[in-house]
């Protein structure tokens, strides 16, 4: 007979999860947002751009899917595997999506960029050869104010090319 685990509002919950392949232990009150937890843990590449789940700057990959980490509680992430932008480059080598963003001038202030890159990561898993329309729809949950999106779309097209030609090992989640 199992006891239902109940955490009171001031009680700390201990969670274990993996971020960018590393095991992490974290203690928090239940209401803490995942984006705050990640940033406290040092993953400041995960950005906060709004408070109504619109902008997508906080996008990370959780258990293989792109999610807005501002709309997930840290406690929900117990036992999960999370990939943030900090986990994309391997041994100093940029991920093809990162290379493509640099190549195509797909960022200006860089604030939306981590979330945009992670969403592109997810999009290209789902649709390895997306059309322009599919790319725009695929990043419709990520707002950018600087670039006008055009170069971001070009970058995703270039990244798709690079990935399909197998230029760099592609991390499987």
């Amino acid at each position, binding site marked *: 007979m199992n006891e*239902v*685990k109940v955490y009171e509002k001031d009680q700390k*919950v201990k969670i274990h999860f993996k971020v960018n392949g590393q095991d992490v232990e974290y203690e928090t009150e239940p209401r803490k947002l995942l984006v705050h937890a990640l940033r406290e843990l040092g993953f400041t590449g995960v950005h906060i751009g709004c*408070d109504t789940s619109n902008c997508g700057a906080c996008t990370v990959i959780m258990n293989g899917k792109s999610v807005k980490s501002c709309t*997930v*509680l840290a406690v929900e992430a117990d036992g999960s595997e999370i990939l943030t932008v900090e986990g994309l480059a391997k041994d100093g080598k940029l991920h093809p999506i990162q290379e493509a963003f640099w190549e195509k001038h797909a960022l200006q202030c860089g604030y939306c960029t981590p979330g945009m890159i992670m969403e592109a990561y997810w999009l290209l898993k789902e649709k390895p050869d997306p059309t322009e329309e599919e790319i725009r729809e695929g990043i*419709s949950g990520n707002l950018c104010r600087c670039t006008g999106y055009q170069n971001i779309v070009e970058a995703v097209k270039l990244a798709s090319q690079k990935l399909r030609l197998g230029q760099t090992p592609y991390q499987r989640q």
Partner: protein
Amino acid sequence: MYPPKIGYVIPDSVTEALEFLEKHDDAKPLAGGHSLIPMLKLRLLRPSYLVEIRRLQELKYLRKDGAQYSIGALSTHYEISKANIPLLSETASKIGDPQVRNMGTIGGSISHLDPSADYPAALIVLDAKVKVVGTKGERVVDFASFAKDMFTPDLNQGELVKEVLINDYSGYKYSYQKLERRAGDFAIVGVAVLLKVDGEEIKDARIGLTAVNTKAVRATEAENVLKDKICEKTIEVASDLAVKYANPTSDIRGTAEYKKKVTKVMTKRAILTALGKR
């Protein structure tokens, strides 16, 4: 931005979840969290506890038994969009944005019943049924009655949506058309159309409207007009009649006048798209 203090409950089974929810009348179930957590962040809601049901495998399934789909409450919009369910998959693919679809669930969505939600238009047209589970057992309700009013599902404290049942409408033509101010926004109007076409005639027609009332409605008069030979005139008349079922309010997403006008436009689009004429 910062949720208020809340307790957190991790049940190991649906039964445990239901028992806790029944005992604590201001506890709320947490599924995908994409209606609940935004409300917590704006402090519009202050539940005593959140009961995490997101990982209860008992509610996570999507299967076809013969001519009926059983969609577990925890099926995400993403999973449903990939399941090739006539009309419903298309509707799911238009909810929110990609990240929202990865987390949001059908059970959560219909338990919340936002008047602008997309599923209800499709569900009333598909004659969907909802299986509700509580501490005292299960019951099955037509979605049309389950959705009593906006934010008012037929759910008692201590009950959860278990699954959504939909008959297989393969062979039917369908379309879900959503008008939104910009991508990812709430619908200004959403129209779900399901048609049984035999040669040049429409034998069965269903039109569901969402976002233009406190809950989704069937435009029955418009449906009746369509059950005829396929022609421009009947489509035009049906689209006009659909407007009668729209009672929108003026807000920053449009004047009531405008919303009625686009109800007609989108109904026409949905019919034409379903018929492959667009």
